[in-house]
Each structure stands twice: as C-alpha cells, then as structure tokens.
C-alpha cells in the first residue's frame, strides 16, 4: 500500500516537488500499478529469473577510440549552460 508519504519520498528521489493534490493522485495511481503487478504473483515462481531476454552473453566492443561530438554540439542540447559547461542545480 503506497501512502502519500511514500509518494513524497519518491518525488524527493526524483527531485520533483508535488502539490498535495498530486500526492493523492499519484498514491492512487501507484497503488493501481501495484495491483496490476499482483497478477504476476499467480505465475509459478519456480523459474530462474530472466535478467535479459535476448539470450545473448558477452557482447563486447574493441577498445578503440572514435571521434567525440564537438563542444558546440554537446552543449547545443543543454537547457542551461555557462561558458563551456552545462549548468545544473546545486548538489546536496
């Protein structure tokens, strides 16, 4: 059972501020998602977990350099920048 407090915490983890209204709304939605997952509980658990569905193992690339993007291209998508840097929120 997901409570409003849980939603608050999840919001904090995602650095998203939620209104009281949103907290109630998301609590309801999270709970319905969890209900949906309960269907999985009906499956016979006696199968090994599938970590990857491709069935592949050991996919590698050789340790070779390839050209990087230009600084302009890299910064081109930045919502905020300052000089040669991306600009982000202060860290904890």
């Amino acid at each position, binding site marked *: 059972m997901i409570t409003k407090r849980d939603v608050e915490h999840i919001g904090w983890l995602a650095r998203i501020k939620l209104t009281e209204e949103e907290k109630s709304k998301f609590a309801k939605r999270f709970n319905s998602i969890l209900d949906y997952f309960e269907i999985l509980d009906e499956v016979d658990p006696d199968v090994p977990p599938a970590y*990857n569905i491709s069935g592949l*193992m050991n996919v590698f690339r*050789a340790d070779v350099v390839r050209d*990087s993007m230009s600084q302009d291209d890299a910064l081109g998508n930045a919502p905020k920048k300052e000089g040669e840097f*991306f600009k*982000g929120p202060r*860290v904890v």
Partner: protein
Amino acid sequence: MKYKESDGIVIGLEVHVQLNKLNSKLFCGCSPRYHDAEPNTHTCPVCLGLPGALPVLNEDAIVNIIKVALALNCKIEKQTLFYRKNYYYPDLPKGFQISQYDYPIAIGGKIKVNGMGGERHIRIKRVHMEEDPARLVHKGPIESSRYSLIDYNRSGMALIEVVTEPDLRSPKEAREFLNALRNILEYLDVFDDSLDGALRVDANISLAGGARIEVKNISSYKGVEKALLFEIVRQKNLARRGIKITQETRHYDEKRGVTTSLRTKEEEHDYRYFPEPDLVPLGVCNRIDEIRGSLPELPDIRRQRFVQQYEISDYHAKVITSELRLADFFETVASEVDNPLLSATWIADVLKGELNYRGLDITAFPPKHMIQILQMLRSKKITEKSAVQIIRTILDEGGAPPEIVKRKGLLKIEENIIASAVAEVIKENPAAVQDFRNGKNEALHFLMGQVMKKTHGRADPNIVNKLLREKLQCT
C-alpha cells in the same frame, strides 16, 4: 598520538580507481584522455545520456578488471551483471549510473599490508565495474554553492570499485592499504595514478560504541589519512561531551582538511537497483586462465625475488619494489654495476631520500647517471660524500656525472696530496697530536676533520685515517 588501539577504530574503504590507460571509455568510443582538454569535448550521445543511445561494453576494460581481481586474490564470479543505480544528480546524465550490485565481477580477495603489529591481511569484499560520473565544478564551497557546472568529459570512464571488509584499524593502515593497492595496479599497467581524479575513496569509520560514519569524496592518498584522523578526533570529542554519534554521511573538504555533514542522502534501497536491460550478462570463466597467465610479476613476488637473486635486505627490497619504476630502475642499475648491495643502498637509502625531499619521483633521475656514479665510487675515483653531492646537483641543476665531477672538482685526490695535507695538519696541531699519543682517541677524529677540511672533503677518509696513524706512530 591522536588515537590508540583501545579506541576500537574500525575502518572500511571503498576505493574507486579509473582504468585510465584504456583507449576509450567503458561504454562508448570517446577518449578518456581529457585531462588537458577543454570541458565537454570528449562526449557522445552515449556518455551524454541522449535518448536512444545504447551502451556497448569495452572488452579490454573487462580484461583489466579481471587482472585486478586476480591480483587481489579474488574469486571471479561465473556470471556477472550490470545494474542501474538510480539517483538524480547533475553528474549522471541518464538519471542512473550503470554499476553492479548482485553478481559483481569478483568477490573475496585479500591484500597484504604492513599494519599495526606487523604484516596483516586486509580482506577484499568485492571488486566491481561501473561508469564514472561527470565532474562537477562548484561555484564556491559545496555547502553554499547555488548551482553547479558540469563537465561530461569524465562521464562514462571505466571505474573499478574495490570494497574492503572493515579490517583496517588505523588511518595509517588505511594509507598503507592504498599504497599496496596502488602499487599492484601500477604493476598491472592498468592505472596511471599521476592523473587528476585517478583514485577516489569513500571511507567508513566507527569508534568503539559509536555508529558508522561514511566520509565521501576523498581524492588523494594523504587525504585518506587526514580525513580519518579528523573523524577520529571529532568523534572522540563528541563522545567526551556525552553526545551520541549517529550514522551519517559526511563530505571531506580537501582544502580545509575537515569533514562536514551532508544533509539527507539516499539510502541503499533508494537506489532502486535493477538489471540494466541494454547490456547482456557476462560469463568470463573461460578467459580466466589466459588472463592469469598474462599477469606480470607482482610487487610481493618481485620483492621475494630481489632478496633471493640479489641478496639485498628485505627492507631494501620492500622500498625498491614499492614503486614499479623504482624496481625497474634498480634492476637496470644492478645489471651494470655488478654490486647489487651497493646499488640497493644508494638507490633505497640515498637517492630515494633525496627524491622524496624534493617531491620528485624516479623519472627525474636517469639510471645511466646512477650507473656512472656507482662505477666511479667502486673504482674509488670519488668519495661517498662527492657521490651524494653529484646526486643533489643532478636533481637541483641538471647535468651528467662526469661533467659535474669536472666542474666541481670532485675527483678524489691522490694519496701523495693527502699525505702532505696530513703532514701540515700534524705540524699545525701539536696539542692534538700530543693528546692522541696520550691515548685520547677523539684527538684522531679532530685531526681527520682538519685533513678533510684542507682537502675540501675529496680525500678518501680511509686513506686519511691510515696515513694519519702511520705518521703519528713513526714521528
């Protein structure tokens, strides 16, 4: 003494080491050689976390981490998986870090360390692979900066995390551990520790009766010892004032040498680890024998060989093998000079000391210079004092031994010149001569000093001694 055994100090380390000798990053082809580059010039859609970009694992990064794990006596796991470690931070463009969780590459190793009360084994809990986050540049101190600037050049570099069991008992032991680890990595040729940010440490420390404190962001060898010492003093002071130490994460401020509390930080379960669906599982068992066969001689084995092969002391062998380049230097010199004992003494005791004093490493001194100096010393062309002077001159002013000998007039003087200096000194110091004849041995030291002074330290002390005794006895 800031701490003692009864403080019940328990330390565990999480050491992050960049595989900075690789040609490319962990999941993309960007070059990891960004140290002299402009910010944000070594990026691509993968390491910038642009939508749709997919990671592909660098094979040599895996070979390198297996080398490290084997050198640390770890058990390589049959199957290993990458996970997403989710947390929202500007240094992670994807909103998660590709790391490992269950099923790391390797578990259960150990490193031998010179600790309190002799040699100790520090257990390694696990070794795993992850991508390095970007570098954050703060405006002002971390606690008060209003925003951060981000350089994604470092983002996605191959990073190894070595986690110890809480086996360390003092800050000094923690530093010894790091030295031993650094030494092994250097021998494996997977790591260049001279590069900025090559090694970063998080340390867990508790004192008897107190909770575990995690100190993050220690970025140098010396910093580890300092940060831990600071924590011990801080925690002891709190305890003395009757304040209970509760579990928290602190940040180490290298400049100020203090740790400061970080406000709420994610707990382990907040990271919501789950298997990275864009990467397939790894099974590296079939590679282990081949990789083990390719391992170079490691520090401990080399030290034992030096003691056996060159018959040098265990102490000298330890000092010399504590750095790969120093050990190579010694072998080059010893093979030419044909006197390993002399070579070991001059390299471990004299040269190393002079280098440390100047904050230099062995690359500042070409081995051929040491060979020339020791050869002149062996053929008695120069005195030990002059040899030291030549070493200092090379380090301070540059130049090569033969030229320095000439320029500074360091060639040992001939016996006949010493003899005339001896005669003069005897003539000029009748009182001391009389004292010696009356059985006062110190008088001989005084007279020797006078001869050395006259010859500007270039006389062989053994010859001075011999000539003085002869003269004093027969006149």
